[in-house]
């Protein structure tokens, strides 16, 4: 490699750019294939076959329908992007992008692997990782609300309004569910007892850094916070369903009542952006769940899996483990969608405010008492 190029890659911004591109290149196909997975799994659950025709273009090779994203993407691109006359054009065009961007931004702080070479596999190693995540996740609502407002149609508007109330309600429960996680993980005394490779890896990382949560869970399976904090995990999981507008909480979309909710007036690529945004949000939500509750990229199978990578292949294995865990959560989310009916709107609010909020508060207090008893 010429010296100028190697010099370029020594620059931090170039490496970050490379990581951004790599994450994008991995996440976009994941989005595309989670759509295929959604369609196939829903079909199987409903005794149908699902899209099994599209394979490699211009051949007869069908590959179990794995070429479907190509066809879907092409269709979305060449369809007419119709803008109804009665919409507020600027917001109408802005909304799909606003809906899609936050889900990708969340992925910036998620550690999706340990190390590759000398690089930490996280785009922005923020010490306020979790706060940043919550800040960005809550922006997701703006796309939906903007779409609902700009469409100037009653169905879209109702969808947008529902989405506002829903996201605000569940954001609180979600935030409070995470508090006990950091009560356990953000513990300086625990961090002093870390093994050599971990303390090198976490050098300079703050207590709210997502990597230190992973370190906390790396020891055994029962260090996973999903077992240590089952209530927090359940609340967080359900709140993620609500945040990503997935059934049983897809009231903003709610086909049966609101046509298609906030994206009723959208067609072609701008609709596809909403669609991709939804799936990207699912991936981001799954990534958060994996990091916070399921040990991130670690597996409790010995040093190779649960300490930061020393070699290149080990780093790749860690990334693979992380993606596999995300895939499992995606399948769970898809599965639930085709299993449970939608909640009624008052039930939704009821669960959010009267059940999960007190429950998560109680969980914090109980955790605090247990920690206080254990430490004194």
């Amino acid at each position, binding site marked *: 490699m010429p010296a100028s190029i190697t010099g370029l890659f020594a620059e931090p911004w170039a490496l970050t750019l490379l990581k951004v591109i790599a994450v994008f290149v991995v996440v976009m196909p994941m989005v595309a294939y989670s759509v295929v997975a959604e369609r196939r*799994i829903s*079909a*199987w*659950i*409903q*005794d*149908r*076959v699902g899209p099994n025709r599209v394979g490699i273009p211009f051949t007869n090779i069908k590959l179990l329908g794995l070429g479907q994203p190509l066809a879907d993407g092409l269709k979305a691109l060449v369809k007419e992007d119709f803008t109804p006359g009665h919409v507020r054009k600027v917001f109408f065009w802005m909304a799909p992008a606003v809906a899609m961007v936050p889900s990708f931004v969340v992925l910036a702080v998620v550690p999706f692997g340990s190390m590759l070479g000398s690089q930490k596999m996280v785009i922005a190693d923020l010490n306020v990782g979790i706060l940043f995540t919550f800040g960005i996740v809550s922006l997701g609502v703006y796309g939906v609300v903007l779409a609902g407002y700009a469409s100037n149609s009653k169905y879209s508007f109702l969808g947008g309004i529902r989405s506002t109330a829903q996201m605000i309600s569940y954001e609180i429960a979600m935030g409070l569910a995470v508090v006990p996680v950091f009560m356990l993980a953000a513990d300086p005394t625990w961090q002093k007892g870390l093994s050599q490779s971990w303390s090198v890896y976490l050098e300079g990382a703050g207590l709210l850094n997502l990597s230190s949560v992973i370190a906390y869970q790396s020891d055994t399976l029962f260090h996973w916070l999903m077992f240590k904090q089952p209530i927090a995990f359940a609340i967080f999981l359900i709140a993620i369903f609500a945040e990503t507008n997935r059934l049983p909480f897809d009231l903003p979309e709610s086909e049966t009542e609101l046509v298609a909710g906030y994206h009723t007036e959208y067609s072609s690529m701008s609709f596809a952006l909403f669609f991709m945004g939804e799936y990207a949000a699912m991936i981001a939500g799954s990534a958060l769940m994996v990091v916070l509750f399921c040990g991130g990229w670690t597996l409790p199978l010995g040093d190779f899996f649960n300490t930061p990578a020393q070699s290149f292949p080990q780093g790749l294995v860690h990334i693979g483990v992380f993606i596999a865990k995300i895939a499992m959560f995606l399948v769970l989310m898809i*599965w639930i969608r*085709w*299993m*449970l009916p939608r909640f009624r709107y008052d039930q939704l609010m009821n669960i959010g405010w009267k059940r999960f909020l007190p429950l998560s508060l109680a969980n914090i207090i109980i955790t605090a008492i247990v920690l206080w008893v254990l430490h004194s």
Partner: protein
Amino acid sequence: MKVDRTELTWWERLYLPTLLNGFKVTLRHFFSWKRSEVYGDKQKNYSAKTTMQYPEEKWDVPTGYRGAPYLVKDVDDKTKCVSCQLCEFVCPPRAIRITPPGDSGVVDREGAEKMPKEFEIDMLRCIYCGYCQEVCPEEAIYLLEDYAITGESREELVYDMKKLLALGGADKRAYDHHVQDGVGDGIKKWETKTREAGEQPKFH
């Protein structure tokens, strides 16, 4: 009217039994790999798909199905149509167009005075009513079992006599029908019609 609501136990109100039941039901349906049984006992069989994968799997055309009208040949492979033009007159959408032979007509079988010079059916106009089959005294036209009629232009879908005869083939269906009934020589429609008329209840 007062509706009594069932009192749920605390366990039921937790929503968990429903959730577990949902997992059970969806899993049972998920692992159903058998091929479709479209006209089978589907309702009782959770292990079969409902989708019929069309070009590979085809449905059984039921008896009495009215598909595309084609001209049939007799058992000696000769044209049965005698250009009487009854079907042309009876056809409600006027899909049939017969060019009579005029003076210079030739026939390819004994016992026929004439055969059409040209016989065209516009498959785009045909409504599959079956009047042509009903009216034909020679049993020369039949609604056969073709249901997938496709073409790339309107002209292509006007079937001419050659094509209709080729698609209709030998009068197998009429022949089978008569032989099954155990009447007639398999050719003459009027025999069946007479028999059917005789079976009608008589009023005195």
